[in-house]
């Protein structure tokens, strides 16, 4: 479990992170969302033990990460532009990783080699951006980290490779309880793998959710009545959104379905549909609830 408590960080005089608190459970994949400049990369670099926070704490299983070698041996951070030593071939880079990360798994490395099909003798910096990113995943996953921190990892990968990489990550999470934090400015890119999502805006979280909870908790209801609709039908629920199209009401309601269903049935509607919500829709409405327009925060 990674727990970040009351983290603050400023560059020069501008505050990049103002009191960030977040917990990531072991074996989960946490999606860190936010627009450009929201502070995602800074947060990830502090979590990876690269930057030092001004105040607050980052701990893994109660251990602080900064300058903690034995902990960092189990963490790999892949930045938005992965770095490789100049003039190094994939093989040389792999040797470096092997000597640096004690959990390095050569079998894994060769299995992934088969899967990705890249030439070991190629100089990494001469490869295309997408290929370099594949190499970064390849090396990272061969090092068998317990924690994988990814900054905008899917940018520039084509659909096939993206799928491959996602599968590899999910597999490791399932097999070895690897914990993953992945940042993105694009919800659609990560919604299929994350189980938790947090939205960072101007250096603090405006929303943090378990996706399963989210999906089961928010309901899009189309409802129509013969006569005037009953007043205060949803008074025990949070209404995130309400609109009227002709005589049909469209309501987004937050709450337990088991309580919602009988309530609506009792009011005898002419039409009652409970529609599925996409994750994006959920966010749109959730954010309206806290007073933000999602276009301003996510792409």
């Amino acid at each position: 479990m990674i727990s970040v408590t009351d983290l603050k960080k400023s560059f020069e005089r501008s505050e990049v992170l103002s009191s960030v608190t977040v917990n990531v459970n072991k074996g989960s994949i946490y999606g860190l969302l936010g627009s450009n400049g929201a502070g995602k990369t800074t947060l990830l670099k502090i979590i990876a033990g690269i930057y030092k926070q001004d105040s607050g704490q980052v701990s893994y299983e109660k251990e602080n990460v900064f300058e903690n070698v034995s902990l960092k041996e189990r963490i790999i951070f892949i930045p938005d532009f992965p770095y490789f030593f100049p003039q190094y071939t994939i093989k040389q880079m792999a040797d470096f990783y092997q000597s640096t990360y004690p959990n390095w798994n050569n079998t894994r490395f060769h299995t992934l080699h088969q899967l990705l099909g890249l030439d070991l003798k190629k100089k990494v910096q001469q490869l295309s951006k997408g290929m370099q990113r594949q190499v970064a995943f390849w090396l990272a996953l061969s090092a068998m980290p317990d924690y994988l921190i990814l900054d905008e990892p899917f940018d520039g990968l084509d659909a096939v490779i993206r799928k491959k990489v996602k599968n590899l990550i999910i597999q490791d999470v399932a097999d070895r309880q690897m914990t993953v934090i992945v940042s993105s400015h694009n919800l659609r890119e990560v919604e299929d793998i994350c189980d938790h999502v947090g939205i960072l805006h101007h250096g603090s979280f405006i929303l943090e959710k378990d996706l399963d909870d989210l999906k089961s908790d928010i309901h899009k209801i189309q409802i129509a009545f013969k006569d005037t609709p009953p007043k205060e039908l949803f008074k025990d629920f949070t209404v995130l959104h309400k609109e009227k199209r002709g005589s049909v009401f469209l309501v987004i309601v937050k709450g337990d379905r088991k309580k919602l269903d009988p309530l609506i049935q009792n009011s005898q509607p002419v039409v009652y549909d409970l529609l599925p919500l996409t994750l994006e829709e959920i966010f749109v409405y959730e954010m309206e609830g806290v007073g933000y327009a999602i276009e301003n925060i996510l792409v």
Partner: protein
Amino acid sequence: MRLRTSWYNHELTKQNFRQTGWISLVYFVSLLVAIVLNIFMRIGHNESYYYGYDINLFYLGSFFQVLAIFLVPVMTAMLLMRYLHQKNATDFMHSLPLKREKVFIHQIVFGYCSILLPVYIVGFILYIMHHTLEVSKLYGLAELGYWLGVTTVLLSLVFAVSIFVGLLTGLSIIQGVFSFIFLLFPAGITVLAVFNLNYAMIGIADSYLMDEKVFEFSPITNSVNIIFNDAADTSTLVWYIIVTLILFGLSMVLYKFRPVEVATQAVAFRWLRPIFIYSFTFCFMLVGGFYFGILQHEYNWILFGYLLFSIFGYLIAQMIIHKTWRVFTQWKEYLFFLLGTTLLVVLIILDITGFQNRIPATDRIEQVYLYDQHSRFYLYQDLFEENPGITAVEEIEIVRNLHQQFINDSNRQDFLDYNNQTVSIHYDLVNGRQLVRQYHLDDLSKYTGELTKIHASDAYKQYTQEVFLIDQTDISSMSVTSDMRHKEVQIYSSNQIAEALEALRKDILAQSYEELVNPELYLGEVNIFISLYHSNLYLPIYSTYDYFLEWLEKEKMTEDVLLMPNEIDRMFIVDESINEEMAEKGASYYVEHNPNAEGVIEISDEEEIKQLFESLVPERGEESDSRFAVWIYLKDEEENFQWYWVKKDFLPSFVFDEI
């Protein structure tokens, strides 16, 4: 199985080698060419000319060697610290499970090995050559050891400076440039500060500092001293080692506190930024004062220079920090700078420490030196170690008195006028400290009386005149020549040299105040060849040099070196004051073209010549009434003549009868 606790990381070493190994290799090959190959080339030549007299391994390819000592460590440090200056590299390196100290020590040790290995391999080759080849005329093991030691110390110092600078900045280019600025800084700032202080204060001993001390302040300027001396000042080398260690220690501490995110920023630490801005502006301001002081010699221009260059410096510093040209809106710090500088200038001008009027009390003075040729004075102090100064109380009083007059007569402007003469006073105090002042005075002649008293003192003669400083064993030969250069005697015997030197010293010490102002007849000169530093020392022989003349007599050399009356064919005496025309055309015209004119008499009688010759007393004054011109022509040497102004009063009476 990997040793987890070890400081050695094989893969990091490999990475470093791939990145910086080439420098090491190039350095090694260049040292091979500059030194080893050079020695082989010299072995082939048998001429001893090639061997010279002062052998020092730095003389071989010296330009390259010195260049490499400063370039190689800086370049190595730049590449090794590259991982701190490149954003993605620094993130990567700091995401690895490696402690900062480990990475740092690793980089330092690697860099150290990569710059020293070429030197030690070449050293080893030279050692083998020394045992197998006939190179003893070129170098011995002591020279080899010296070369290795000095090279190691200098390389280490430069490397440490560059690493230190590398941690203070987030830009490799700044690291490179400021490594050299740091190395030059102590000397540069001293020159600038002393020069500029001179505008505001009188008495600053700029020559003392700038000619003597300042070159020792920077390893770059001092390297010439260290490298080309056969034995460098050990204390300097020890200091360099201490500074190297301190810098490595400081660098390690800095690295622990250095934020990773400052890569690509000019100044890595926030607290350092104001220091950088203010000191950069200050240095530029001093450069402005220096520049306009040299070119314009005028206070308004200097003030203009301060203002202009401080603005330049301030803007450049801001540009470096913000990495943009657009800094023209930020003037707050400049305002603080102006206020601070104004305060500083006021404090300096008010002379709150009493610097300008400080004259040590007589009982606090152990000895004092007064000199007007500072470079020669320090040359002698260097060559001949410490020479005792003036210790007699009455003479010290004269110097103190002169000092007070200099203070009173000096003006701040005097420093700007390069026609002025400079006089320095150097007190060694009882408490072991020194007080050195220098004055730029427009007219020294008004102090002639007191100055000459000092000049006539034994101590002054002894610390200013080379003849008292050289050792008899450093003299390989002497020659004594007549004034007319028609006779010369060479002296090689060390006994004779010792006696002659002794006699000359006594004569010079015996020269009185009057004789200094108005010396007696010049008879010839002694030319002393000093083997110590291959130069000649010329000393005049005056007719008052009784000891030396006596010695010549004793050695039966008088007739061989001095002009004798019996060699004179004829003499002319000219009274220029006799009429206007004579004064206008000059005595020489009449002697050559009209020897029968009125006021010119020719003397050819042997007895008269002898009488006249022995009564010649030179007249160095300007009044024409009291002097005659005397021409001397030698027998058998029609072209060779000499003439003097002589005092009328001392001439024999027959001259007046004839004239």
